[in-house]
């Protein structure tokens, strides 16, 4: 009896699974089978594109990262299609897992004709494939397109691979990092914007201990940070301390930032702030969303490291909770030696590539470039960046003023906003018309930042080891930095990790960058 019931159970399970698999097989035949098969053969079958019929709209597939939670509706896309005679297919993938999607699509040969990368790190990873000739070199074609030709040569230079241009860039201000803080809290406690790193620490302390929200409870913190050294608070504060931007010369040789004393000083700053409770204690495990929530829910008073232009969205969410809250931006924080500094990006935050596996010939490439050429006109770039005039923004004093309904803009426009190539100076789109005093201040600070900006000297240098292993090795340093801040290792322990970085490939990176540096 026991055996019988058991085998009946198995039979039932089996039938059930067969039925299930039959269902899923039937539904997904077109969808799943093809990629699954091709993923193991590495062929280019998936990219079977419909050739554009003559005179008909050019069909373009575009893959890009999405920084909101949902794909935008077609409102903007339809307008672009009308204006550019194209048929566009946008494939949005969440920015959080974009590297994964990018690598998987690349491995299966299914990258679309237009492939946006995610940031400079993904660009470094793609370099090997670029050198191997997997993407179209577009440098020679640029002069045929009057608008594309306007892109800034110095930034284009930063994106070249072995002296050749393969990509278009999405321009960003060189140095938009700084801090966004609760001006109402500071005013109440009689504090002014911190002039140096000591005052910054004092502000974090006061925000924690002196009950800035006046509710009689000690329920506030200074800094709200997240699990990210570069775009979190760490790198920005470290540049205030005078740490070089990734690499700098030391004893006549290029050396990585974490071999400089200032890097240690920055770690000490955060260690002190964490121990004293002047920042969120779990920042090494806090996501960007949680860090932002902490700030907009009035629990923290300092948000450091992101773009100061983010003040608009932070303000929007904060005043929902605290209508009287006032935010301001600040970035001129002097280091212990009294000097100002701010790290800079190489003028772009992302690039677009054109895979040869999807773009079959020169003619097709030129059609796609023609679309991007149109994107560089004020009409299209405004449409993609600001949305539809009258719905998403209005023009005042020759500048774009976003509509009141921020949710609508976020839903319908944000997805496209991050894909506009060039910058306002080159594509002629509107500058933003700001009303928020903190945002106006931020725009002034962006210009100030550039004056004291520190560039990454290796941006245009070559190192094969860095291309291959740089990201993997950086993890060792990132982990060690957090362990130091959390007091799990001391300075000697940190130096041991740096040695481990060196022995596992770091030394080679140093050598190669220096060789490339001298050859310049």
């Amino acid at each position, binding site marked *: 009896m026991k055996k019988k019931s*058991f085998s009946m*159970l198995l039979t039932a399970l089996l039938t059930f699974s067969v039925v299930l698999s039959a269902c*899923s097989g039937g539904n997904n035949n077109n969808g799943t089978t093809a990629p699954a098969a091709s993923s*193991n053969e*590495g062929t280019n079958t998936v990219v079977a594109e419909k050739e554009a019929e003559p005179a008909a709209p050019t069909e373009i597939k575009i893959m890009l990262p999405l920084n909101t939670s949902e794909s935008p509706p077609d409102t903007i896309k339809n307008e672009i299609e009308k204006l550019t005679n194209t048929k566009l297919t946008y494939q949005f993938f969440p920015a959080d897992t974009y590297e994964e999607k990018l690598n998987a699509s690349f491995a299966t040969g299914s990258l679309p004709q237009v492939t946006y990368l995610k940031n400079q790190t993904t660009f470094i990873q793609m370099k090997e494939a670029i050198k*191997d000739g997997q993407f179209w070199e577009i440098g020679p074609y640029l002069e045929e397109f009057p608008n594309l030709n306007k892109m800034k040569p110095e930034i284009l230079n930063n994106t070249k691979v072995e002296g050749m241009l393969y990509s278009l860039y999405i321009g960003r201000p060189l140095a938009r990092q700084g801090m966004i803080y609760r001006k109402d809290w500071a005013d109440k406690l009689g504090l002014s914007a911190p002039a140096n790193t000591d005052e910054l620490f004092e502000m974090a302390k006061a925000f924690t201990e002196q009950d800035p929200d006046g509710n009689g409870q000690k329920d506030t913190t200074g800094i709200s940070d997240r699990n990210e050294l570069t775009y979190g608070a760490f790198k920005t504060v470290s540049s205030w301390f005078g740490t070089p931007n990734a690499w700098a010369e030391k004893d006549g040789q290029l050396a990585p930032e974490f071999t400089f004393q200032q890097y240690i000083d920055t770690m000490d700053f955060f260690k002190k702030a964490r121990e004293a409770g002047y920042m969120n*204690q779990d920042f090494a*495990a806090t996501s960007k969303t949680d860090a932002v929530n902490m700030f907009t829910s009035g629990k923290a008073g300092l948000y450091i490291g992101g773009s100061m232009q983010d003040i608009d969205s932070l303000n929007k969410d904060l005043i929902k909770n605290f209508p009287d809250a006032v935010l301001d931006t600040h970035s001129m924080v002097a280091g212990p030696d009294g000097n100002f500094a701010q790290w800079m990006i190489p003028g772009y935050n992302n690039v677009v590539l054109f895979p040869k596996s999807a773009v079959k010939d020169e003619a097709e490439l030129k059609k796609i470039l023609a679309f991007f050429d149109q994107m560089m006109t004020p009409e299209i770039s405004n449409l993609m960046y600001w949305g539809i005039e009258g719905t998403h923004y209005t023009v005042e004093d020759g500048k774009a003023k976003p509509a009141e309904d921020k949710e609508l803009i976020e839903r319908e426009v944000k997805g496209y906003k991050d894909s506009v190539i060039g910058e306002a100076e080159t594509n002629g789109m509107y500058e933003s018309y700001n009303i928020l005093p903190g945002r106006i201040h931020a725009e002034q600070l962006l210009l100030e930042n550039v004056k004291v900006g520190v560039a990454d000297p290796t941006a245009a240098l070559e190192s094969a080891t860095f291309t291959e292993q740089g990201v993997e090795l950086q993890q060792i340093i990132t982990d060690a930095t957090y362990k130091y801040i959390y007091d799990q290792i001391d300075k000697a322990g940190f130096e041991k990790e740096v040695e481990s970085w060196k022995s596992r490939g770091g030394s080679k990176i140093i050598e190669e960058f220096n060789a490339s540096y001298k050859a310049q």
Partner: protein
Amino acid sequence: MQEVAVQPSAAPQPQRKRGKNSSELKKRLWRNKWLYVMVTPGILYFIIFKYLPMYGLIISFQDYKPYQGISGSDWVGMEHFNRLFTEPDFLNILMNTLILFGLNIVIYFPIPIILALMLNELRGTFFKRFFQTLVYLPHFMSWVIVVSISFVMVTMDGGIINELLVFFGFEKVNFLLNPSWFRPMYIIQVIWREAGWGTIIYLASIAAIDPGLYEAARMDGAGRLKQIWHITLPSIRGVIITLFILKIGSVLDLGFEHVYLLLNSMNREVAEIIDTYVYTAGLRQGQFSYSTAIGFFKSIIGLIMVMSVNKLSKKMGEEGVY
């Protein structure tokens, strides 16, 4: 991969053995034709999704370049396996994987059984159904949700658990970043999400036990505990062993998503497991060959484990899974 693959072939096999000559075999095949038709989609599924992809394992012996394809990439022999075994972190990662697996077997595995026995003792169908639903609902939440809920509960900045600790006069505990809390957090979350779901099969097999056995036992004066010990448990022993073998098969498969969500710079030394390592090395850093080699290694261990446990269970007089 392999451990599930044995199921569909299990059905036709005994019949082939019984067929004494080919004409009788044909007759048998014909008589059961609808069974074969029914099993075809399942077999196809395994061929397409489980066996064909094995072809891709080739790249673990190559210096695979996606744009050159399998036919165009260079052969490098065992280089990636050598790299894996000489990697300074490898031993640590393997240990982490095995420890989490051990926790799964020792702590998690018995819980659904106990839970099923307890649910079974509940009188009144309403309560039974109610509690059963209550305990298996968490299964339908994604790991992201489970981990986020835990994050909110245990965070140092106003998390309820830390607030309670302070209220009762204890120190705050940094659950999220303290390496020694990673494993307890992991196993508690597994239990919370999966235990109820795991009871379903046990409850189903308990329901199939002949009530006459219990009546007879009661007549002989057996109490509740005695009934459980002498009737219920022996009756579901087969199911327990089958599920145990299947569990062993996934020895190094601990739910990538869950661990990855809990992983951070501070607990990496205890939290990095083979799955997360494959993900970071392979998908995020594009080392396809290397990560395939690791995955391959993992599958082989799984296969060996299933085969040995299966053998063991047969030696002990149980059915095994094949």
